[in-house]
């Protein structure tokens, strides 16, 4: 029987779920701008208590690996990795975009999850759900929303857009895709940690020391360094 702790803190929402004997026992999703570092561990403790489980009764951990807020991802993942390591139990990771796309898990069709990455950019990918199965059609990445939307338009398929970021991009989506776009209500678009467990069923377990965030974006310092060295080599 599986007792599984699921965590996602990759963006503003914090979501934690506990499965007991394969059944979802408790879940907490908070979408208020708070500090994940202060909130997460007490939330895990409280949920475990409500599920009447001791830490050493956990059999598996599933964590959202990003993309999203670099700091947010690391808080969830450090917690998940450290728990999995010290309890000596398996850990699995799931894309935080796939998790959000999971809102449409039991429907059929194309799903585009996205997170605001500022200055008109988004973290996004394209998924297809089919009554409980989810497939990745286009890998997660970091792109500007306008060119991504022009690309999606060429698919000529209805696409459901899912994002916890409210309606910042809604008018842009509607103007590019018109009838092709369905925008899921915000309340349905939050990451729900409980979905990490069903989505993780098809994923491989990861060696705990190798688990790391999937930022989908290099750091500014690395980007600058590469740019500078490219400039230097073209100048020479």
């Amino acid at each position, binding site marked *: 029987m599986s007792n599984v702790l699921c965590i996602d803190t990759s963006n503003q929402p914090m979501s934690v779920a506990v499965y007991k004997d394969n059944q979802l026992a408790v879940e907490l999703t908070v979408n208020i701008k708070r*500090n994940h*570092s*202060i*909130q*997460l*561990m*007490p939330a*895990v*403790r409280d949920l475990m208590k409500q599920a009447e489980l001791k*830490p*050493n009764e956990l059999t598996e951990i599933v964590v959202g690996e990003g993309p999203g807020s*670099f*700091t947010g991802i*690391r*808080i969830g*993942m*450090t*917690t998940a*990795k*450290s*728990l999995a*390591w*010290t*309890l000596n139990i398996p850990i699995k990771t799931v894309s935080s975009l796939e998790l959000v796309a999971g809102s449409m898990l039991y429907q059929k069709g194309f799903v585009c999850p996205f997170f605001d990455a500022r200055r008109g950019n988004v973290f996004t990918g394209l998924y297809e759900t089919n009554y409980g199965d989810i497939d990745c059609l286009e890998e997660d990445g970091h792109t500007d929303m306008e060119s991504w939307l022009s690309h999606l338009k060429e698919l000529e398929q209805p696409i459901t857009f899912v994002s916890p970021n409210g309606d910042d991009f809604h008018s842009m989506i509607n103007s590019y895709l018109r009838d092709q776009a369905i925008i899921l209500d915000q309340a349905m678009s939050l990451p729900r940690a409980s979905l990490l467990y069903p989505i993780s069923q098809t994923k491989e377990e990861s060696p*705990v*020391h190798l688990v*790391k*965030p999937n*930022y989908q974006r290099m*750091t*500014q*310092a*690395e980007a600058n*360094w590469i740019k500078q060295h490219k400039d230097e080599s073209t100048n020479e």
Partner: protein
Amino acid sequence: MSETNEIILAIETSCDETAVAVVQGGRKLLSNVVATQMDIHEKYGGVVPEIASRHHIEQMTVVMEQALDEASLTVDDLDAVAVTEGPGLVGALLIGVNAAKAIAFANDLPLIGVHHIAGHIYANRLMQEFEFPLLSLVVSGGHTELIYMKQHGDYEVIGETRDDAAGEAYDKVAKALNLPYPGGPVLDKLAQEGEDLYQFPRAWLEDGSYDFSFSGLKTAVINKLNQMKQKGENYRVEDIAASFQASVIEVLTEKTFKATNDLGVKQLIVAGGVSANKGLREALHQKFDNRDIDLMIPPLYLCTDNAAMIGATASIHYHQGEFKDLSLNANPGLMLG
């Protein structure tokens, strides 16, 4: 303080070292693992906070496992988990803090938050027992402080830098001299081969003050370099280094000397990354060796950032019953005392 043999797993991730140690009874080092990122940040000429955090999360469980393995212990042998809660780089601190909280929760262990500078001071207790009152000179990339202690866990900052920390001044002057990263140790080495030809200013500040100021000195060095370059004068980098270092060291040792006299302390503890500086070590030995005061400078592996010092400090918190709950957060601006 009662003698016990509590075993503490300590974590330190305040800058660019992922460090975990196991310390018994505050004084016995069972293991001390440091994964440094120095070579990673080298090409950027300084620590890049986001890159540091990215490496910490990849190293964290590896280093914890290695620390327990080297101590030949398991988590079941631990009595507490301790972590640096600040000061430091927030993103870097967060990895250690959240790892420590997870280990504490999973194993039902008490959680201890440690101040990084207290850690540097307590690194010395792994070598020798403290005698109070004592004075500590903390010199690092982020700190230049004189701290007076009447008893364990009691810190009174009697002097501190008003601008650049000593280590910061070293890094900036090293940059002006185009020295490779990290500049401080390279500058120290060059200074050994040079002479104090330039007599840069000593910042004594107002009478009786134990505070420090190094930004004027840094500016004087940079101005001198520019002047000589404009006039096409030749100079030896070694002499610039020696002249800069002579000013820093004279101010540090004289102010420290005055404070030890004024306060009548039994021990002087030197702590922080810059206490690895050879010139400073020599000057302090010259000043204090024949005096009625114990000069304690940690061995090099305890000068730079490590988790052994966090474990040594945590032992004091453990005995004083100072524990944190699971809402503990990283505190980049944490004050001492």
